[in-house]
């Protein structure tokens, strides 16, 4: 079920009616960003978009919304496209436990077909474009960026494959946002302490599992490639980039190699972010590109992000929810499922079987102190184990009838949060809250919950009958 590359995934999407090919001529702006926004607005079952006639290019191809729906997310996992989100969550969590799966090293990567070492012009190679109206320029925002720890360059697990926003500042010069908390931020810090530039490889246009895993909050020494193997259910194929020796996906469309220049910071941004707001301008590192390897007529894969929901929310939904689930379950096996897919987990919903009164509130507070929770988990909604946290109708029901405003709010003052949260003040600090919508149990005895309305006999059977008739 593993897809060898982006084109292989497109074959699956096409068979399932989840790929839209667009051959009408389009101006890069505003049409590419507009189409990606539009498909996210229209449906949560939308197709990937593949444009192949961008004005100014002979063969420019741009892919958008590749995993921008639940059917496409299920197909990425090799599951039927109608698989419910909750089932995708449990399968994702099950595969997570298979980590690590050793990689498959290959020497015959398709991106070795063409190379450029001199006179590099990324605009000749790729149909770069401005995504949202007031972005500072063109961005590469869905590439797997690979770097190694300069103090331990032979450690495979410390090699990092992550996704960072990259501003195209010139034909061969980029700006990058490696936050100090990111693994690449640690690599850059070590390189700059040593007075060295940091070599990087930027792999553009990949099958979606590595893109998903590269956005996961893995431990520093965990390999994204070995996790990708676990999630796709077979060894992940990698190949060495020729200039830097960094390991990149075998199936990439384009591999850029260069280095982050030590000690240089330059104005970057704004960029329309996943919070639905533009980030401000900051002085950030730059990358000089020295070598480009690519397939002939490469596909430029781009992520649309902005006001949720967008492809970014589908891409990050389960790789945010599953780590939180695993970490909470370790201490509290009563945790049944975690839905942390709202703005990367700024808001989360946890289904938990209560041990005793007050237990759910404690689990909600624990979520805030997980590694991911330190920057997210601003609002935690706790629901009973009988409530599906992925079903918002059920969550809203629980909040409306189980939650008591006097007893069920826990506020944590002045907690840490990611600075991009526009409500944080100062940036990076916010109050956090647990909203406990579980049924009170002893010793917390209150309310009138003894007579719930259960489903009529034979309901489960009728679900099967009707589902079959709808096929």
């Amino acid at each position: 079920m593993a897809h060898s590359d982006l084109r292989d995934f497109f074959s699956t999407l096409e068979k399932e009616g989840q790929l839209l090919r667009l051959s009408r001529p389009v101006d890069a702006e505003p049409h590419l960003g507009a189409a990606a926004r539009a498909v996210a607005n229209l449906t949560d079952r939308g197709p990937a978009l593949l444009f192949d006639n961008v004005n100014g290019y002979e063969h420019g191809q741009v892919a958008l919304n590749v995993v921008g729906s639940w059917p496409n997310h299920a197909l990425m996992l090799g599951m039927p496209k109608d698989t419910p989100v909750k089932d995708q969550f449990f399968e994702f969590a099950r595969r997570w436990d298979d980590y690590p799966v050793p990689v498959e090293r290959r020497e015959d990567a398709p991106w070795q077909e063409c190379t450029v070492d001199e006179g590099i012009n990324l605009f000749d190679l790729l149909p770069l474009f401005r995504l949202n109206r007031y972005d500072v320029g063109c961005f590469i925002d869905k590439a797997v960026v690979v770097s190694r720890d300069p103090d331990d360059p032979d450690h495979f697990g410390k090699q990092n494959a992550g996704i960072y926003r990259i501003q195209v500042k010139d034909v061969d010069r980029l700006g990058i946002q490696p936050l100090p908390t990111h693994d690449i931020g640690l690599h850059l810090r070590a390189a700059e302490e040593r007075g060295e530039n940091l070599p990087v490889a930027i792999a553009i246009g990949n099958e979606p599992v590595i893109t998903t895993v590269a956005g996961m909050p893995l431990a520093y020494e965990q390999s994204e490639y070995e996790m990708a193997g676990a999630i796709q259910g077979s060894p992940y194929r990698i190949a060495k980039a020729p200039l830097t020796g960094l390991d990149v996906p075998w199936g990439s469309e384009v591999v850029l190699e260069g280095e982050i220049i030590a000690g240089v910071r330059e104005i970057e941004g704004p960029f329309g972010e996943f919070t639905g707001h533009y980030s401000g301008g900051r002085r950030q590192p730059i990358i000089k590109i020295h070598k480009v390897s690519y397939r002939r007529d490469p596909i430029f894969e781009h992520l649309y992000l902005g006001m949720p929901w967008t492809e970014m929310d589908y891409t990050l939904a389960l790789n945010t929810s599953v780590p939180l689930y695993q970490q909470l379950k370790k201490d509290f096996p009563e945790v049944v499922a975690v839905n942390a897919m709202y703005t990367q987990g700024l808001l989360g919903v946890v289904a938990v079987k209560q041990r005793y009164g007050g237990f759910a509130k404690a689990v909600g507070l624990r979520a805030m102190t997980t590694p991911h929770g330190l920057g997210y988990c601003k609002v935690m909604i706790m629901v009973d184990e009988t409530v599906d946290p992925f079903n918002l109708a059920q969550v809203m029901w629980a909040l409306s009838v189980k939650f008591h405003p006097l007893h069920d709010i826990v506020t944590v003052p002045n907690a840490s949060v990611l600075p991009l949260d526009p409500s944080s003040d100062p940036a990076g600090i916010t109050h956090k809250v647990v909203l406990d919508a579980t049924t009170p149990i002893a010793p917390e005895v209150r309310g009138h919950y003894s007579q719930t309305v259960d489903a009529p006999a034979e309901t489960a059977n009728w679900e099967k009958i009707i589902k079959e008739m709808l096929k």
Partner: protein
Amino acid sequence: MTNPEISQSEICPRCDERAVRVMTTSPVPGVWTMFSCDVCFYSWRSTEPSYATDPATYPAAFKVDPSTIADMPVVPTVPQRRS
């Protein structure tokens, strides 16, 4: 009224500096030109709507005063060299 052709080639829509250069042109000749500002690194394509290309209509909230760039937050900070 600003002449858009002069604006695109001379004045940055975002920081209003006369530091504009041609970054590149379309692979198919004559379709578009990418401009870039050497002060604030804003870039734009000649075929974009005027909100992105014209200093007169570029929104005030997104303008940048070049004198403030040096004081913008540095992320991540540059560490000290190891001795």
